[in-house]
């Protein structure tokens, strides 16, 4: 191509393109089947998970998955996360990103094509549209015909069904934040908190507008992942690929037969346009990999059915790589490398992060202690020459029963420990009671007598220790300093 040739003048193009409505055709095949099953599974989990009960004992929510904002707890089956353990969520996000990268390096946009909520809900809404208004041809025809009463009824029914699903979507969302049966009752009787209705409204609106109207526009214009995905992919990642080595040159069935009989080259693509008709983003996969392609595999199903009918081998559109098309065109055998450094590194990272999270989850304690030395004053000299340091001590009891601890300080000679608000008999260690599943903050004063303090360095390391009165195993300790002067 001559880059310096004078370009053809064309008419002014608009700065903004009008929306082109897409009418995907129904299709049958293995990928369609996978998509239906995944859709049922994902939506089933989303809509019904809040109703799963999980017994945690009296006084504790019995909802299996619950984000309890008022009491600042996240319950996930047997796991209870406190706000200061939010790093588990960070770990999950890292894991999610790594899994996304792995999917991408193995088979392209598996997330976009099968699992993304935008894809799943759009697919469901298309299903309803098809059920109410008919398949592609009928919908195109109806959109160009004058409106009849019957047509109005169809449109109303479709939007009503969409809105019901959208409303149910918003409703299911809020159920994750409160006891589901109770909240449903209070929503039904109009006594739920305003925030519940607001969130149902917001998610009803987003589901209805994004899955009913925005659809592929979300993927093409709003979503950052296609841009990131393009930068993360490599020549070995399987993508939904039109095998131009086999398909070109395109020729209709009879024409192809004639060409083959004459010994002329003829591709398998019969140019039937089925791949474009079924595409939910309305693209032509034969133009190669492109940002708009969510790689849902529906064009594979459509093409395979056509290939079966015309008696050619299936797989003209398949999960493959562009390099393999070129290899075949050169008469070489295709090469597949699912195991390569990139995928192995991702798998290794996923295993590592999972192992770290599991280990930290398995070894976390139900008792914990935080100590903070007073900033001002660092040290207080008393009238008899004794030296006192003040600390803010926070105890955490993550068990579902009230407990009692004795508090000890090690690292300085003959410490006298006083807890503000708790009277301790002379010569005894202070005893601290703490309620179930809660924390308690204490002001603790540690005094070292004058003669003992004289021998101390300016700062000594001290260890605070709490010991469960019913078993020393469930104890905790924390380190800080004692400042002597």
């Amino acid at each position: 191509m001559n880059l310096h040739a004078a370009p053809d003048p064309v008419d002014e193009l608009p700065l903004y393109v009008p929306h082109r409505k897409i009418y995907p055709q129904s299709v049958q095949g293995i990928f369609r089947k996978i998509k239906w099953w995944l859709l049922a599974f994902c939506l089933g989990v989303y809509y019904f998970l809040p109703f799963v009960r999980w017994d945690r004992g009296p006084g504790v929510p019995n909802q299996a998955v619950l984000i309890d904002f008022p009491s600042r707890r996240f319950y996930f089956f047997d796991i209870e996360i406190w706000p200061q353990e939010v790093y588990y969520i960070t770990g999950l996000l890292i894991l999610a990103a790594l899994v996304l990268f792995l999917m991408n390096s193995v088979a392209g946009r598996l997330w976009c094509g099968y699992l993304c909520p935008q894809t799943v809900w759009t697919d469901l809404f298309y299903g309803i549209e098809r059920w109410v208004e008919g398949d592609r041809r009928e919908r195109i025809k109806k959109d160009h015909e004058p409106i009849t009463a019957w047509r109005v009824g169809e449109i109303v029914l479709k939007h009503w069904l969409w809105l019901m699903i959208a409303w149910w979507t918003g409703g299911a969302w809020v159920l994750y934040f409160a006891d589901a049966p109770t909240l449903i009752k209070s929503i039904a009787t109009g006594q739920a908190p305003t925030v519940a209705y607001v969130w149902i409204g917001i998610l009803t609106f987003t589901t209805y507008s994004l899955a009913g109207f925005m659809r592929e526009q979300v993927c093409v214009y709003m979503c950052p992942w296609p841009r990131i995905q393009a930068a993360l992919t490599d020549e070995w990642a399987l993508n939904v690929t039109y095998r131009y080595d086999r398909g070109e040159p395109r020729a209709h069935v009879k024409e192809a037969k004639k060409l083959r009989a004459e010994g002329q080259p003829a591709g398998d693509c019969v140019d039937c346009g089925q791949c474009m008709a079924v595409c939910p983003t309305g693209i032509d996969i034969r133009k190669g990999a492109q940002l708009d392609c969510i790689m849902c595999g529906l064009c594979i199903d459509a093409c395979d059915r056509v290939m079966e009918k015309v008696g050619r081998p299936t797989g003209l559109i398949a999960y493959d790589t562009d390099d393999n098309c070129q290899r075949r065109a050169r008469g070489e055998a295709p090469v597949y490398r699912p195991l390569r450094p990139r995928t192995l590194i991702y798998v290794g990272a996923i295993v590592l992060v999972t192992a770290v999270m599991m280990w930290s989850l398995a070894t976390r304690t139900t008792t914990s202690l935080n100590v903070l030395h007073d900033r001002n004053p660092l040290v207080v000299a008393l009238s008899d020459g004794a030296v006192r340091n003040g600390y803010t001590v926070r105890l955490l009891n993550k068990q579902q029963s009230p407990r009692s601890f004795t508090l000890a300080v090690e690292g300085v000679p003959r410490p006298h420990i006083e807890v503000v608000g708790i009277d301790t008999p002379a010569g005894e260690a202070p005893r601290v009671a703490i309620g179930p599943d809660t924390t308690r903050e204490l002001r603790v004063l540690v005094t070292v007598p004058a003669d003992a303090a004289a021998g101390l360095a300016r700062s000594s390391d001290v260890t605070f220790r709490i010991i469960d009165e019913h078993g020393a195993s469930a104890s905790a300790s924390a380190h800080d300093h004692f400042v002597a002067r």
Partner: protein
Amino acid sequence: MATEHKEIDAVSGMATTGHEWDGIKELNTPLPRWWLWIFYACIVWSIGYWVVYPAWPLITTHTKGVLGYSSRAALAQDMAALAARRGEAGRALAEASLEDIRKSPDLLAFAMAQGKAAFGDNCAPCHGLGATGSKGFPNLNDDDWMWGGTLDAIHFTIAHGVRSDDPDTRVNTMPAFGKDSILTKDEIGTIADFVLSISGQTPGAGADLEKGQQLFADNCAVCHGEEGKGNPELGAPNLTDRIWLYGGDRASIVATITNARAGVMPTWKNRLDEPTIKALTVYVHALGGGK
């Protein structure tokens, strides 16, 4: 515009916008039209905003908006709501005794928080943010109290002050022994040496401790006690410990005896409400020195 013609980029097959920089031409990748509609919707929204909220500056004032909203009024409302909420929790403080507050974990946490804030606002200028005081302003962390370190004594001191205009104010009256010519310079030095000796320090060379003890018994013991251990009832400090409000070296003690000291603290009962004074009391007591 129809007469203008756009060119097609030879490599990509896309139209260009006609903009060109050093031979590089910008491709026209048009945005969807709904994007433009959202922009228009935002403009419409902003018009609604102008109508509802204060928006346009005028010469001496501004458009007020039909809601009559102002951030100043919103602040006042929030402050009033806070005062009402604090009033409720403050009632619990007002009703409970000081000892009950100290013993109840919930009330203690509330009183400590409120006390800390009130201390920073009202007391820190003299006593310091950490209540460590300085010369002439007592350290409230230690266990040495001029007017007593029990909850009740601390409460009384905060409420009525020292040498304040409150009729029940705490007052201690130490004579200016030197300035008023009650004692001679030598006698004052002798007393200072004796005071050094009872507080575990080394008196000056050749000090006559016996005479000093006699002079102390005659002039000082009436308030500070025979042994110099002080009396919180009279605001007479303990002279035998290691804590000195005005300095414990010989020169400082001589200066104190010569000129006397008269510390002041305002009465707070007219400036702060009772729950705040109670919270301050519990806070100061919990600093560590409370008896």
